[in-house]
């Protein structure tokens, strides 16, 4: 943007010089170099001021949305600009004329100050308008870019949210377990199928319902765990602990299921040893703590998956800075812990 500005500036001054030269070219009393000196001296001092504005006035860009303030801040400098401009330009001209053995004739000083100040005000207004226009355009472009990025990100996370609810891997495996049980124990297969349907229904209604009680979410976790119990009989021991007060809390629907799913995916499915999973919830003052712990080795990658990112984004959307989700290795396994503001459901 400043490159475009400097080009424009250069063109402007070339025109100014060309006009002045053209104007005096046939005047026998004016030497050829004089118009160059007049315009050149003005050009150099004005350019210094432009560079100063570009370097130093960046801080005022935050007022681009309040044009009056932005222009006001710049125009406040007009007296300083006028005084330094006129004195330095005229000093330079006098000096160079003296060096050339001539004297520089101009109207009386009060007139010069009046005339030059009016001219400066006009030019300054013009150039501030141009700078303002260029900067506003850049700002608008940046804003639009950011908006597009935000929209894209939002769409992606919504998509991810839908996908992350129940993993296809889980669904197909559960279906296979049912298909296997059907051959030997029809009643058990039937029970498992009903639970799977309940879980599927719950995950599908999440879209319409944002908050739920921890009590309902807890039932969902137990449902999920009971399905996994059929698949991994003997390889998992589960313990549940939640106070009544905690169960009455309001939380985002289907927030915890992906965390339990992770414990199975990284804890149980990757280990031939029996794994202990502990699900706990408690209230401490204004906060609700939920912890899902699984024994076994820290796989190193746990904590970065799409399910967790999703949970974090949902927490951030609902609670901002007041909620957090951490997945950390502990001495006997891995703990996912959620902290969020306690609200009665």
């Amino acid at each position, binding site marked *: 943007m400043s490159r475009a500005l400097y080009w424009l500036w250069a063109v402007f001054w070339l025109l100014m010089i060309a006009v002045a030269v053209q104007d005096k070219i046939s005047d026998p009393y004016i030497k050829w170099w004089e118009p160059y000196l007049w315009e050149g001296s003005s050009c150099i001092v004005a350019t210094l001021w432009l560079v100063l504005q570009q370097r130093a006035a960046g801080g005022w860009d935050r007022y681009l949305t309040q044009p009056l303030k932005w222009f006001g801040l710049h125009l406040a400098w007009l007296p300083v600009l006028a005084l330094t401009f006129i004195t330095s330009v005229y000093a330079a001209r006098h000096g160079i004329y003296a060096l050339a053995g001539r004297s520089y004739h101009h109207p009386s000083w009060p007139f010069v100050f009046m005339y030059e100040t009016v001219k400066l005000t006009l030019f300054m207004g013009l150039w501030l308008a141009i700078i303002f226009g260029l900067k506003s355009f850049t700002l608008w472009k940046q804003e639009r870019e950011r908006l597009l990025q935000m929209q894209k990100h939002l769409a992606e996370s919504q998509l991810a949210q839908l996908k992350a609810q129940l*993993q*296809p*891997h889980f*669904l*197909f*495996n559960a*279906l*296979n*377990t*049912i*298909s*296997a*049980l059907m*051959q*030997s124990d029809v009643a058990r297969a039937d029970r498992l199928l009903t639970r799977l349907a309940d879980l599927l229904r719950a995950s599908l209604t999440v879209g319409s319902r944002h908050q739920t009680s921890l009590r309902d979410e807890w039932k969902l976790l137990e449902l999920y765990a009971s399905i996994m119990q*059929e*698949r*991994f*009989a*003997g390889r998992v021991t589960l313990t549940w602990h939640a106070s009544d007060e905690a169960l009455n809390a309001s939380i985002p629907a289907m927030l915890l299921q992906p965390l339990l799913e992770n414990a199975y995916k990284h804890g149980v*499915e*990757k*280990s*031939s040893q029996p794994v202990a999973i502990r699900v706990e919830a408690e209230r401490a003052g204004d906060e609700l703590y939920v912890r899902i712990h699984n024994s076994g080795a820290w796989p190193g990658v746990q904590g970065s998956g799409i399910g967790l990112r999703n949970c974090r984004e949902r927490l951030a959307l609902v609670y901002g800075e007041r909620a957090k989700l951490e997945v950390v290795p502990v001495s006997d396994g891995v703990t996912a812990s959620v902290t969020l503001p306690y609200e009665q459901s």
Partner: protein
Amino acid sequence: MVRVLIVDDEAPARDKLRRWVGAQGDFEVAGEAADGLAAAAAIESLKPDVVFLDIQMPGLSGLEVAAQLESDAAPLLVFVTAFDEHAIRAFDLNAVDYLLKPYDRDRLEKSLQRLRERRGAAQLGSAVRAARAQTRSSERLLVPRGEQLELIEASAIHWLEADDNYVHVHTAGAKYLVRRTLADLLEQLGERFVRIHKSTAVNLAEVASLAPLFKGDHEVRLRGGAVLRLSRRFKDELFARMPR
């Protein structure tokens, strides 16, 4: 009778396969395994004709087990998986048999029928190769240690020595005897190793020095102290691949 090994970490899934495969007149279930290492050990000890191999398992995955088999002497493999887009694409490309969970009796029958047709036909080893392409099989080698099997890092291997149908795998502190051919082992382990003799291959990173002998043969000294012979047949390849 076609002898079948069933590998799955979930008991209900094994039960279903055992019931249905056992009901076939010409198939019998020779054994079951619940994880990757047990599967590899069972393949070694039971020598089944066919293995139904679940992919998602603790420890070694089904693909990792398959990658460690001798490609031309492996049993017929049928991979079983619930959801594994990537692997399935590779299976389709390489005409590798697989079963998607859940499956019904018809699909299993089809799979068994294909196995009947494949038996006796020249085995291409494509299942093993497809599995190798999808796992880091050139990084790790499954070796027997006493009664157990264990994985060692390929980088820890100093050199390989063929001995009939076996290969001695030499590392810094141990020597393992693997029932594989040298050619197949080299195919699995890839670029890290280079053959220096009909029956010897070395880990390139372990070569300490070379000294000429007569008739174009060379003496190869390894960092670990072993002194081996480089036959002139393999000289050019070793020289081309030695780091300068």
